[in-house]
């Protein structure tokens, strides 16, 4: 086991530091989460250290270790993966630094709170919306996120669970790597292959917006449902181009994270599980 070092003495300056290890900043969703957290920290007068794991659990582990070395007071982790984050959480636990997980949970290690909206539920919400709009039957295309990421898995699972009961058929299921450009070209190709498509569900708004361009260029009318409610997507919904997007309120997750971290610091009790509402953004 690790050599136990003496517990960090709370130094005046560093006691105000909160660490945030975020899975990636390559995606507007997580950028919003970070922005929310930063705004809250500023408001409450705390310094927030943000480290980017670049979707790599090994980097995430290093980031947590570096925060431990830095001696931050609380660590907010937005895990890259619920399993893989376990040992990183334990590393913080070893040094008695409280951990709060955001958006994704941790399957092992001690966590004082988990703040999230459920990806599976979000997928389900999108599925139900599609069923309702298509009257329970039709052909849909599913644009998947980066293969092997938990967001892609969970959103896909929720969506497919929901439509299982209906007569809706997934006629094509292809990855576009959460990327708008890929969303465009993959959708173009699918449009060539499938004469009839009623709806598209994309695992994030970036892909949805790419697909939207492809559909617009093809002249067809196909309903597009995205996920994340990024600014661009909400605008597209308002303009009537996109049908809906599932809002996870990432900024709220971030700001709740900091708010609760501060409570922990002050010794206040907090809820173990803090849900953030999902919303379906439609026109």
């Amino acid at each position, binding site marked *: 086991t690790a050599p136990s070092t003496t517990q960090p003495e709370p130094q005046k300056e560093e006691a105000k530091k909160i660490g945030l290890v975020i899975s990636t900043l390559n995606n507007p969703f997580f950028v919003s989460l970070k922005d929310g957290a930063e705004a809250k920290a500023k408001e409450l007068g705390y310094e927030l250290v943000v480290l980017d794991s670049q979707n790599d659990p090994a980097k995430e582990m290093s980031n947590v270790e570096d925060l431990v070395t830095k001696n931050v007071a609380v660590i907010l982790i937005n895990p890259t993966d619920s399993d893989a984050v376990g040992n990183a959480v334990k590393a913080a636990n070893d040094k008695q630094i409280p951990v709060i997980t955001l958006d994704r949970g941790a399957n092992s290690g001690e966590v004082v709170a988990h703040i999230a909206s459920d990806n599976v539920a979000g997928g389900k919400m999108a599925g139900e919306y599609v069923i309702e709009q298509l009257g329970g039957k039709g052909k849909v295309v599913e644009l998947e996120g980066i293969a092997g990421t938990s967001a892609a898995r969970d959103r896909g699972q929720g969506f497919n669970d929901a439509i299982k009961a209906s007569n809706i058929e997934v006629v094509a299921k292809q990855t576009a790597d959460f*990327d708008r450009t890929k969303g465009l070209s993959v959708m173009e*190709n699918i449009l*060539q*292959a499938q004469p009839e498509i009623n709806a598209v569900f994309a695992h994030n708004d970036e892909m949805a917006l790419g697909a939207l*361009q492809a559909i617009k260029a093809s002249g067809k009318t196909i309903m597009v449902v995205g996920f994340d409610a990024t600014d661009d997507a909400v605008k597209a919904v308002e303009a009537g181009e996109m049908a809906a997007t599932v809002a996870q309120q990432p900024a709220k997750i971030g700001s709740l994270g900091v708010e609760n971290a501060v409570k922990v610091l002050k010794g206040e009790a907090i809820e173990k599980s803090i849900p953030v509402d999902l919303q379906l953004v439609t026109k």
Partner: protein
Amino acid sequence: MKKALKEFLIKNKSFVVLVIFCIIVSIVNERFFTVSNILNILRQTSINSVIAVGMTFVILTGGIDLSVGSILAISGAVVAAMVSQGNNAFIAVIAALAIGAALGAFNGLIISKGKIQPFIATLGVMTLVRGYTLVFTDGKPISAGSSEAASAFSNIGAGYFLGIPLPIYIMIIVFGLAYYILKHTRTGRYVYSLGCNEEATIYSGINTDRIKILVYTISGLLAALAGIIITARLSSAQPQAGTGYELDAIAAVVLGGTSLAGGSGGIFGTVIGALIIGVLNNSLNLMDVSSYYQLLLKGLVILVAVLLDRKQKK
């Protein structure tokens, strides 16, 4: 006549690979060989093609350019930002191209004058420019907006002329120009000579530093052009645009039979290489191959294609 054809096919095995591949896909999926899908493939290929042309220049000199994806991203961000601020689309495009060319020239400068190996120099620039793009965009997409300028701009990527998408014209012009430069001009000859034997080229009185700076500038310029096309198509610039595009471009060049050691190969091969990759992506989508198997098959096709195309042993 027949002999010439045979020789052509032996020399251009990648062309044979492409044709056979297309025939197989056409049989499996009847939607593949339609005018609309072929235009679709060509339009999708245009991005990688434009980048791969620049990469061909660089690779012919024995170099490599990993920074194209990042240059694509910053140019896209700049053009989108300028258009969204109501600037004239033409001016925005020129500015973005200038930035791409300047970054390429910077690559060329540190490689030639700084004597850094191209792989690591452009790796450094790739990282640096990606970081700067994230700072510039604050990590968020930049929409070109819906002004008149924006809709003029979006034509570059989404417009048509005589029923054929504009990016296809751009690609053809780029290919044609590059082919001509490499085949028929002094500069082209120097590029090959430099790739074959740098020292002998210097001894022949040629300023090889200038050639190096030039090829990286061309690569940067074309990466920026690709960035403009993408941004115009999407009417929006992504901070992460172009990630990993360098590998696709290099793959196109090498599949086309150009040697990474420099000095041999050419644009015609790159056309074929880019088309192989484009057809592959399209056909895997058309046949609804699951994404895991797509990667598997892509790797396999790359290996088989280069194995078939390899130089005969003495």
